[in-house]
């Protein structure tokens, strides 16, 4: 089991290194800054915990605080996915934004009404809910994109799917921990594996710069199409009026 842990650790460090290297080669920092902020943060703590003795009395506090900040920073990845799928200034972005805000507000309301789960850690409860919100956000972005047939580039798609794999494992992991200690051996293995898997998916999808393909309807065409539609609609009204009252 210890060997497996070392293998997973080395694999995750390699993936992080590759992500930074490839991002530096093709300018990933400029294309996906929010994503790289999150990646830098997690990479920093991966290295920092190497030099932080686990027996140190401050270790648990530092560890959980870093996890709490990471849980909040995960929204940067969700936002990165959102802003790359829906281009700025488009109608679809406005619609998708509204849908997602409504869903997140409803989710927050549900959390508030249900209150914290009794007898469980508030930190874990908070992290679970943050993960669920970020996961739901990403699923809705993918759903709305699918509904409007927006093609998603490999970079953003991989970012979203890798992220979903990790946050979903986190939701199940933290819920199972609080549910019964019998689940701990399973999820103690699955959760780190999901993290490494997420990094592997990210490394594969962000190896080269593959942005979203140009979608069929350019936003600049919007007013033109609208005026054409209005013209045709007026012409149809006129014809029907003539036929009814010749």
């Amino acid at each position, binding site marked *: 089991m210890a060997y497996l842990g070392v293998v997973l650790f080395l694999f995750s460090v390699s993936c992080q290194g590759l992500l930074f290297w490839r991002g530096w080669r093709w300018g990933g920092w400029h294309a996906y800054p929010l994503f790289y902020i999150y990646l830098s943060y997690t990479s920093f703590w991966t290295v920092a915990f190497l030099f932080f003795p686990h027996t140190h009395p401050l270790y648990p506090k530092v560890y959980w605080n870093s996890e709490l900040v990471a849980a909040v920073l995960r929204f940067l990845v969700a936002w990165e996915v959102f802003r790359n799928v829906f281009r700025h200034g488009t109608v679809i972005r406005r619609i998708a934004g509204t849908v997602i805000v409504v869903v997140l507000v409803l989710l927050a309301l549900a959390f508030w009404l249900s209150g914290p789960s009794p007898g469980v850690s508030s930190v874990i409860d908070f992290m679970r809910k943050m993960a669920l919100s970020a996961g739901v956000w990403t699923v809705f972005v993918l759903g709305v994109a699918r509904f409007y047939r927006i093609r998603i580039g490999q970079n953003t798609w991989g970012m979203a*799917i890798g992220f979903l794999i990790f946050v979903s494992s986190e939701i199940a992991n*933290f819920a199972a921990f609080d549910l019964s200690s019998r689940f701990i051996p399973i999820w103690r293995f699955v959760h780190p594996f999901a993290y490494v898997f997420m990094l592997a998916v990210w490394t594969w999808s962000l190896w080269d710069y593959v942005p979203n393909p140009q979608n069929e309807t350019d936003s600049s065409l919007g007013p033109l199409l609208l005026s054409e539609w209005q013209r045709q609609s007026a012409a149809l009204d006129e014809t029907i009026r003539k036929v009814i009252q010749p």
Partner: protein
Amino acid sequence: MIQLLLMVFIGILLLCFALFALGRKSRTKSEDYSDSDLELLRMLRLGSLEFDATNLFSDTDYRLLASEPLLRSLAQELRKDRRDIALEWLRELQKDVFSMWRFRSFLTRLGVAASIRNELSEAVRSLLLLSLLRVVRVSIRLLGPYAFGKTAIAVRTSVENLKRSCAARLSDLPRERWPQIAAEWQRVQGLRIYSAQ
């Protein structure tokens, strides 16, 4: 307790969704198109499939107009126009079936491996589609556009499947060869148009 169980369930559901999406993506390859991919998409682009014919075969507006005695002549005119458009569209659909058939034989000519059984079944499929298209066209000419609308839409779906099978066959080839195939296909198409003239 219920909340925790729900969370476990949602977590597992999301995980399955993400893994399914990942598996699906690797099966369908990339959705992002390089220049050669775009070239191929252009090759496999079927004009008839870009037209959504659902409204064309819907008789809602015809019935609405026909229910008004004053608008009956307009309804007849609409029906006739629809019939002509439907026939035109079905002609395009027929052309596209031929085009896909030619494309398949072109791929075979280039050495794309296909079993005889597969070849035969595709040929039979194309023939059946063409026969069905002929029947639908005659029916629409005789009975108008609304009687066989659903059949026409079903034929469209079959043509779409035909196109998909062509694309799948193409994806068996190494991507390096795609630009060459695109150029060769364009040349063959050009020759065909020239000889037809």
